[in-house]
């Protein structure tokens, strides 16, 4: 998953997508996640980091992670695949 180049992320949690003109706000944990995703960390690496750092179990995090990714896709913040390609 790759964050679109047009998306600018500020340290105060403000996200601006210059392709669509939409802006978004992130909570602090959302900001941490999106930065990690931008750095190219994949789910497994991210999961290990988070589980060490935070008081959370792996299934809860997995669920939240994929919900967050779905929102990023929905808001066109990540580069889109065609969902019916069934890759």
């Amino acid at each position: 998953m790759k964050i679109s180049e047009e998306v600018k992320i500020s340290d105060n949690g403000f996200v601006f997508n210059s392709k669509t003109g939409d802006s978004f706000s992130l909570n602090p944990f959302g900001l941490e996640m999106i930065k990690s995703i931008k750095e190219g960390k994949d789910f497994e690496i991210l999961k290990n980091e988070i589980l060490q750092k935070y008081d959370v179990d792996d299934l809860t995090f997995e669920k939240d992670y994929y919900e967050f990714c779905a929102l990023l896709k929905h808001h066109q913040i990540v580069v889109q695949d065609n969902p019916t390609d069934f890759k």
Partner: protein
Amino acid sequence: MSKQKITIAVTGLNNTDNPGPGVPVIRGIKESSTFDVRVIGLVYENLEPGIYMDGLCDRIFQIPYPSTGSDDLTERIERIHQQEKIDVIIPNFDAELFSFMKNEKRLKEIGINTFLPTLKQFQEREKDKLPEYGKKYGIKVPKSINLGSLNQVEDIEEKMEYPVMIKGQFYDAYVANNEEQAKQAFQKLAAKWGFPVIAQEFIKGTEVNVIALGDGKGNTIAAVPMRKQYITDKGKAWGGITLADDKMINITHSIIEKTKWKGGMELELIKTSAGEYYLIEINPRIPAWVYLAVGAGQNIPEALIKLALGFDVQPMTDYKIGKMFVRYSYDMIVDLEKFAAISINKEI
């Protein structure tokens, strides 16, 4: 003599094509000869133009809508007060007034002053009570019927002739030329604003307005009559001119004296060709065209602050006749940072 430093918080910075009074109120305050004012803008939405106007506000804070409960609103203002030490708040939306009137004491206890009508003054002027209001205070008002069901639209004919004004409980009005149109308007308004819908006699004439300030003891501190020269499709004045009309001033004095009105107000009147005046509506706050009064010589926002701070304020009786205002729209170029700051941090 150096001016007294004070901090004033103002809402209603939505200077759109249906403008709130916040921006003109601030302009009036800034022209005060008594006060050196620090302005705190209180906004509900992140695109209120006042946020982006250079030099208008010293600080801006987002506040929660009154509909979320006046406790939330008051707590937010208390937190802002801890940082900013607000001396006076001037709320400028009808929808806020209830919350601010309710919390007047609570704000006063921590040192925030207001100058608002009482709940009774606020409620007895509501649209569906206009006939009683007219009777009680001896003012001519149009005949009206409160409609609670579609069937009652048929009763309109018995009491008045078409055309009639069909009005929503809080906002909006349509002219209906016949029963069919009245029914359509009734349904639209009932769906939007609930019951009752008000059918009001259509008074032929010119709409004229008075902006006024009452001191709560029956004295009229300021009063400036105006005629709208052009009205937008939203029913708002686009241009207006001050009038020399003693009758309008007398009506205003009489209402303020009898009701002991406290705070800013706007009277909406219709002047017929026979020279009679009918009261159509009372807005319980300063209207958006307040800067015309300031320009004509009565700085109503400044006087309101003085009253709120407990000063002895003498009535202003002079104003320049034939002063005009013309509104204009203006595209400001602003940076994303301000939008980001108000959206994320809820303050600037």
